[in-house]
Every structure is written in structure tokens, then in C-alpha cells.
């Protein structure tokens, strides 16, 4: 390497250090502490200098390495590992993944905690698959998907607590309600695209949440809805001591009572619901309406000139995507037995969109990988408490650096020939 390069790298890393100093100085360096009466500023310059030093060193090493046109060994191996996941391998991955998911509850190391995390990941996978219809296939960026999740959860909770109907009746009703809201949102945004659509859908998500907080008579406001009935195993409840003349799950099958029965049942329930979502999406993709979604994502004017009705096509995408969000919401309500508007904040929408985008828009397997990665990482770092969102952000940055088109970029980069005039 030339001497000039080293000097250049050194200068560059000093500049990085300056930026780091400007950022870390006030944020980390000046700490407010309350002593007796009032707040005092305690400087902690040691940590600042350590951080700035790390930045300078890191930048310098990166510069030297890029000058040599080599990458950090760890980076390149990571990168190649990710890029070796192709669509073909994704198929094998899918089959092994489903098999693993089926036997998962009975593996020796599986305990209550693992099951809870698995159920959570599966819920996000289902939401990701549902949103994938809207964002991945139809190309409509929906930042308010949590609204349909909330509508599903509240419809389920209200119907179940008011009428006492069983889970299997309430579930499709909740899905229908959510689909109806999908159409309701769809109408005003039909003419919008891209950024504008994203902003309006974001607003819609917030409107639903605020209605849930303020419509006290129906939704019980911020107190939420309690006592949502648990699902039964086709009529057999999961109770320790069933009522007189009633069978419960463990007495019917002659098993020792265990709370795990219900957890395992919930696990399989969400697994089946998620797989139905996936199967449905894969099938509808091959039908004219599914192809029309993808065509609409590509070019709306071409669609019009071929006789595709964009209004109906967009509305079906919104409605079907919302319906699966509603199913997932019902599941959430029955699993928690308690829901409140707090569970349906914007961060949920953001996580679901992140899962779809990071998975590689339109890729079903990508959604699974992204869910495991993002939800898994935040779970692993649960002990770090408030810092776990840093891990979440870090995971996103890692994916964006190594796989900028998503973990499984289902669309290969194509040469865009159309519209090359002007």
C-alpha cells in the first residue's frame, strides 16, 4: 500500500472522529444527575474519548482494508453465506422449516419460554405474510397494517365477550370485519401511490388506535377488554377442573393436567393459521387477480391499457391483506385474554413492514427468516432491557448492508428497458 493512501485514510478517520465527538460529546459526555435539590451536569469525558477513539480506529481499519481491495474476513464470509440462500434452497428450507415447526413443541429443550417466543414469531410471520399481499405483491406501501390487526382483535374480543360464541365462529367474523375496514381504507387511497399512500395509511393506523382509546362505551377505552374466552380444543376446554358433567381436554384424553397443553394448542393454531395464509398467497399468485396485483405493482398504465380494473384489483389486495391481519388479531386476543389499545401502536406496523421489506419484498420464505431474525434478536437481548431496540436497529442495518434487496430478493435485478425514451 502506498504512503499516500495511509495518510488519506488517517485524515478521513480523524474527520470521522470529529463527527463522533460532536455526536457523543453532548449525548454521552454531559450527563444530568439529580443531587439534593436540582439537576447537575456530571461530565464523563472518559467514555466519550473511548467511543471516539473506537470510531477513529474502526474507520482507519476499514479504510486500509478497502484500499487493499479486501474486505474483513468476517464480513465477506457472512455476506457469502447470505447470498447462498437462493430461491431453490428456499424451497428445501421451507420444507425442513415446516417439519421443524411441527415437531418443535416436543423437542427436549423446548420449554414454556421457547414456546412463547415461537408463538410470537409465528404471529409476526402470519402478519408479514398478510402484509406481503399488499406491499410485496400489489406494491402498495401500507404503514398502518396494525389497524387491521387491532380491528380483528377487538372484533373477536367484543363478539366473544358479548355473545359468548366460540372461537371458530368469531374468527371468520373478525376476519370479515377487518376485510371490511381494508376496503374502507382502500377507497380513499385508490388514487394515491408511494409516499402519499404510506402517509395516509399511517394516519389510518393512528385513527383506529385513537378511536379505540376514546370510544369508551364500546371498547372500554385505555382499560382494554378483559376476560376474552380462551379457545377450546373443538369444544373441550383447557381447564384444570371442568364443570360438573363437562369434559376438559386432559380428562378426555386421560392426560395429567398441564398448562402446556393450552400453549401447545395455541402454537399449532397459529402455525396452521400462518400456513393457511401462506398457502392462500401462493395459490392466488397463480390466479388472474394475483397476477394483476403484481402487474399493478409494475406498471399501472400498462394495466389499464390491458383492461385490468385498478380499482377492484387494489381493493381486493387491501381486503385480503386486512383479512389475514384480522385473523392474526383474533389469535392475539384469544391468546392474551386481554387487549388494550397499547398493543396496537405504530411500532407494530413498523416492525411488520420491516419484516416484509427486509425479507425481500414478495418473498414468502424471506418473511420467515426476517421474523426469526428480528423478533429472535430482540428476544435474545431481552436482558439488556431498553437497549434491545439497539439490537433491533443493528439487525436491520446488518441486513441492509449485506442484502440491500432483502434476505431473499425474489426479484433478480433486471435491466429496465421500458420507458427509456425522453
Amino acid at each position: 500500500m502506498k504512503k499516500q493512501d495511509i495518510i488519506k485514510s488517517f485524515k478521513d478517520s480523524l474527520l470521522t472522529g470529529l463527527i463522533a465527538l460532536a455526536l457523543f460529546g453532548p449525548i454521552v459526555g454531559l450527563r444530568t444527575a439529580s443531587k439534593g435539590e436540582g439537576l447537575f451536569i456530571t461530565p464523563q469525558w472518559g467514555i466519550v474519548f473511548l467511543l471516539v477513539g473506537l470510531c477513529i480506529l474502526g474507520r482507519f481499519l476499514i479504510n486500509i482494508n478497502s484500499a487493499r481491495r479486501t474486505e474483513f474476513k468476517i464480513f465477506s464470509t457472512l455476506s457469502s453465506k447470505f447470498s447462498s440462500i437462493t430461491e431453490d434452497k428456499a424451497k428445501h428450507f421451507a420444507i425442513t422449516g415446516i417439519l421443524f415447526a411441527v415437531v418443535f413443541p416436543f423437542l427436549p429443550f423446548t420449554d414454556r419460554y421457547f414456546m412463547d417466543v415461537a408463538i410470537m414469531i409465528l404471529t409476526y410471520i402470519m402478519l408479514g405474510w398478510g402484509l406481503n399481499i399488499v406491499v410485496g405483491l400489489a406494491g402498495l406501501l401500507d404503514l398502518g397494517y396494525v389497524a387491521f390487526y387491532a380491528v380483528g382483535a377487538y372484533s373477536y374480543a367484543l363478539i366473544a365477550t358479548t355473545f359468548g360464541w366460540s372461537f371458530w365462529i368469531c374468527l371468520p367474523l373478525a376476519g370479515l370485519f377487518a376485510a371490511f375496514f381494508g376496503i374502507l381504507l382502500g377507497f380513499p387511497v385508490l388514487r394515491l401511490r408511494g409516499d402519499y399512500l404510506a402517509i395516509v395509511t399511517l394516519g389510518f393506523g393512528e385513527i383506529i388506535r385513537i378511536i379505540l382509546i376514546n370510544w369508551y362505551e364500546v371498547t372500554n377505552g385505555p382499560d382494554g377488554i378483559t376476560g376474552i374466552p380462551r379457545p377450546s380444543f373443538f369444544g373441550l376446554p383447557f381447564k384444570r377442573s371442568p364443570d360438573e358433567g363437562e369434559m376438559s381436554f386432559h380428562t378426555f384424553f386421560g392426560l395429567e393436567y398441564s398448562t402446556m397443553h393450552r400453549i401447545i394448542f395455541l402454537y399449532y393454531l397459529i402455525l396452521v393459521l400462518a400456513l393457511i395464509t401462506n398457502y392462500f398467497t401462493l395459490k392466488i399468485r397463480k390466479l388472474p387477480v394475483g397476477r394483476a396485483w403484481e402487474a399493478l405493482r409494475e406498471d399501472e398504465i400498462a394495466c389499464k391499457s390491458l383492461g385490468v380494473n385498478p380499482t377492484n384489483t387494489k381493493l381486493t389486495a387491501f381486503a385480503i391483506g386486512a383479512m389475514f391481519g384480522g385473523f392474526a388479531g383474533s389469535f392475539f386476543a384469544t391468546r392474551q385474554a386481554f387487549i388494550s389499545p397499547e398493543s396496537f401502536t405504530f411500532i407494530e406496523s413498523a416492525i411488520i413492514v420491516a419484516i416484509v421489506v427486509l425479507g425481500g419484498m414478495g418473498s414468502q420464505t424471506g418473511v420467515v427468516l426476517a421474523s426469526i431474525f428480528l423478533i429472535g434478536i430482540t428476544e435474545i437481548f431481552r436482558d439488556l432491557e431498553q437497549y434491545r431496540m439497539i439490537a433491533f436497529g443493528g439487525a436491520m442495518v446488518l441486513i441492509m448492508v449485506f442484502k440491500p434487496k432483502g434476505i431473499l430478493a425474489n426479484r433478480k435485478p433486471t435491466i429496465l428497458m421500458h420507458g427509456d425514451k425522453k
Partner: protein
Amino acid sequence: MLKISNVETFYGKIQALRGVDIDVNDGEIVSLIGSNGAGKSTLLMTISGVNKARNGNITFNGERIENRDPHKIVDLGICQVPEGRRIFSRLTVEENLRLGAYTNELGKHFDTDIKEVYDLFPVLSDRKTQRGGTLSGGEQQMLAIGRALMSKPKVLLLDEPSLGIAPKLVNQIFASIKNINKEKNVTIFLVEQNAKKALELADRAYVLVNGKVTIMGSGQDLLKNKDIQAAYLEGGTKN
């Protein structure tokens, strides 16, 4: 068959078409030539219903169509091959063709229809499973025409099929347009900047200037017309 009378189209306050009158008869090839910004594409988009005519009317076999939705106009048998091809670049060639058959009773005659397209453009058959965006410009144009044919149109509206395509392929594409007209009995309304090619192909032709038809006549007559030669033919035709 297709009758355009006194059509005026606006983009906001800007008037793009200032009372256009054009007739296209059954079985004809009619060309519309004109320079950039004359309103050629606007006219096609107005016929297709993507842009709405503010004044005037368009009839197709006696039916008024100027205020219908685009998909209903395609149902009637008017299909457009839009400017710049606009193929779905991330879908495969076959998926593109399937989308062309979208209104055609969900592909009832899909197999025979697609075979006809593949016979017309054999290169598409070789590239069935390839993504549309990976085709060359000429192949994309063939795909765009094939896709429009899948809807079994009575009138095919073509917007600048020679745009950005190698001269050799342009000849091939114009030959297929003639073929579609003669063999498949599809009426053609062609919009082109390549005036020479368009006039050679056309039974009749119109010249559009600033949103108005200024000259009309048979293709051969217009080729000999002094004004047209000066404005559109000399030096402007490299093919």
C-alpha cells in the same frame, strides 16, 4: 368502425388536443404522424379511456365510448400497445401474455391464443420463462404487441412501436403489424414518429400538429406531399 370527432383533451389547464377528427374503418391500417408533443399519445390514451376527453365524442361501432373506464373499452375490443412498451419487467414473458388475456373470459381460449402469438413471434416462445425486463428492446416490443393481441382486439392501437429499437428489428415489427392486419383481420391505428415507415404501411394517414389534424390522405399520397417531405421525411428518416 372507430370514429373520433372534435375531441379535446386537457392536462389541467393545458389543452393537448384541439378538436381532432379521425375515422378508422374496419380492416384498415391508419397511421397518425406528428412531431414530439403534437398530442399523438394523448389521443391514444383518450381513445383507451386513460385520459378523458373534455369535449367531443368517440364512437366504436356506433357506441359512445369517450367516458367509459379503460377496462370496459378493452372489453369492447380496443387494445393499446402503450408507448415505451411498458411490459411488466419482473414478470415472466408468459405471465405478461397471461395478463393480456385478463379480460378475455379468464383465458378460455388461452392455449390457442398464446400459440398464435408464439407463431407470430417465435422468439417469445424461446423466452417464455424469462423475466420481461431481460428481453431486448425489440423483443419487448414484440411482447407488448403479443400481450395486447391476447385480449383478442378488433382494433389495435400502437404507440410508437419503432421507439428505441434497432432498424433491423423495426422492419420485422412493421412486417408483423401488416401480418396481424391481413391474416388476423385486426384493424390497426398506428401512431409513429418514423413517418416514412408509418406512411408506407398505412392505407390512410393523418398528420397531427399542435393537437389538430392538418393533413389527411392515403399513405402513398402523403409520402409524395411536399410539405410532409419537408417537415417529416427529409433527413428525419434514417431507416
